């Protein structure tokens, strides 16, 4: 690209203007630290602008929108079956979990219910995608505080889960498997036994992570009593998922407001931790992965036989109305508010994604911490950029 000098200067000026974001960050003396938009600790394209006083953060602000892909507007020009293809890609680590609340909301409007077998398999794949999601967090969090090895283990063992998802759905990442009224296909032959052995492997992985990371002295020093969120603040900022449970709030949509999934028919436990620091967020997620392994084992044992699809018309038109369904996704509460006017496409879809709300606490949380702690706090909050910006 050939640029004249004036063009070059205009480009630099535009970049500089882009760097100035907040009056609070800019006016006083001190140093402004720009983290991102390309930084390994930000899981992609989050940008944090922090004003520093020495090593201390005086004010910090997350700048989102670098991954904004316009889902809510795009869903208005996609038919209902096409929407699942898109919304798979919101939280790309646990894709199947993204489809479920949307499909459930559409089913609520159409007044169809998936057959029991479809509900069980949905729950099963939901928990598998939770393991696929959180296992990477367990490795990634260790990377952020300085240990590189755990992420290799995480990627290694995550492949087993992805293989199982791929065998059912055909996609490693984006299954696009959920349909209004049921599922696309039944489970393949021999899948249940294989998944049983994968669950055992993931249990071993959790034990390995506990030994490798959780008991590590450096890890504890970097995370204990760092980034403490009291329960009332967590609730005030609308945190959800493991971040909220790590603050000691006993809250889980799977137990409290379960819609359309079979969590009420299996025996499981909600894990909470009273501390609310980075360490407890890691701990809660580790326990949740274990709990998901237990749940999957029970689900594998109890899948009822029967059809996989309910009776739905070939061309799906959702009757006029409004519905909101939220589920407990790996990152927290994810809900879809669908407004339908009886057309082939939704009239409006509002996506309530967990990471966006979880992110909103960062200005409060990063105030007064040291610079290296920014990384460990951000890692422990665990967001996915597609989930923040949508």
């Amino acid at each position, binding site marked *: 690209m050939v640029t004249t000098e004036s063009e070059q200067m205009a480009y630099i000026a535009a970049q500089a203007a882009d760097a100035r974001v907040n009056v609070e960050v800019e006016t006083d003396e001190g140093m402004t630290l720009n983290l991102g*938009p390309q930084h390994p600790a930000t899981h992609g394209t989050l940008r944090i602008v922090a004003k520093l006083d020495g090593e201390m953060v005086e004010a910090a602000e997350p700048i989102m929108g*670098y991954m*904004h*892909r*316009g889902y809510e507007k*795009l869903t208005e020009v996609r038919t209902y079956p096409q929407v699942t293809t898109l919304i798979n*890609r919101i939280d*790309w680590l646990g894709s199947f979990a993204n489809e479920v609340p949307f499909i459930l909301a559409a089913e609520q409007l159409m007044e169809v219910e998936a057959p029991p077998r479809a509900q069980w398999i949905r729950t099963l794949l939901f928990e598998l995608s939770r393991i696929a999601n959180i296992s990477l967090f367990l490795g990634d969090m260790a990377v952020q505080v300085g240990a590189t090895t755990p992420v290799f283990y995480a990627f290694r063992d995550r*492949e087993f889960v992805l293989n199982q998802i791929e065998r059912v759905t055909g996609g490693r*990442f984006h299954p696009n498997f959920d349909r209004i009224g049921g599922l696309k296909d039944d489970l393949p032959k021999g899948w249940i036994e294989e998944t049983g052995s994968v669950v055992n492997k993931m249990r071993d992985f959790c034990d390995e992570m506990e030994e490798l990371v959780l008991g590590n002295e450096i890890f504890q020093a970097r995370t204990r009593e760092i980034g403490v969120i009291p329960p009332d603040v967590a609730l005030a900022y609308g945190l959800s998922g493991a971040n909220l449970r790590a603050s000691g709030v006993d809250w889980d949509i799977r137990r409290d407001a379960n819609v359309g999934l079979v969590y009420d028919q299996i025996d499981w436990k909600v894990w909470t931790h009273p501390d609310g620091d980075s360490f407890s967020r890691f701990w809660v997620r580790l326990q949740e992965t274990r709990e998901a392994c237990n749940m999957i084992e029970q689900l594998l044992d109890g899948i009822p036989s029967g059809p996989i699809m309910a009776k739905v018309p070939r061309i799906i038109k959702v009757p006029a109305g409004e519905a909101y369904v939220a589920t407990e996704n790996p990152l927290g509460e994810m809900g879809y508010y669908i407004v339908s006017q009886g057309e082939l496409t939704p009239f409006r879809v509002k996506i309530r994604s967990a990471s966006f709300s979880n992110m909103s606490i960062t200005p409060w949380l990063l105030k007064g911490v040291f610079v290296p702690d920014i990384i460990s706090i951000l890692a422990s909050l665990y967001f996915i950029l597609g989930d923040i910006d949508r």
Partner: protein
Amino acid sequence: MGLVESGKLPKPLTKILNMSRRYSMWVYQWGLACCAIEMGAAFASPRYDVMRLGVIPLPASPRQADFLVVSGTVTDKMAPAVRRLWEQMPDPKYVISMGSCANCGGPYWDSYSVTKGVDQIIPVDVYVPGCPPRPEALLEGIVLLQERIMNEDMAERWKGDPIVVE
């Protein structure tokens, strides 16, 4: 590199240069969206293990990198940053566009905020299709890029503008 710039590089020397460049590529990974995880699986997982191809992931800065993997959706807000990081890389530099979003916009072909193809802002050498491509597909793209480097005439490249794939 006076010999290279003069355009009189002997063939055997070119071959040795190319071979050494081919098997010591530092990749700056531009993890943007879903594809970043598949790229991470290719680069950091023991199953795919990109280092056996002579590619070294995770340089500290783009200034040390030989090629860039743009993995994921480039939005209009992100595009200046992509361009800026690409400009920081030393020549000769190569770009692999990974995934449908970086190739052409992918499932967001009608979105108001997505750049329809990273080739609008930087020249791309290899396109890897898929949404997201499997790690094997990325490895195949890297192998193709290595073949291209192997057959490249350094003198030609250094004489004029960088190779632009239209």
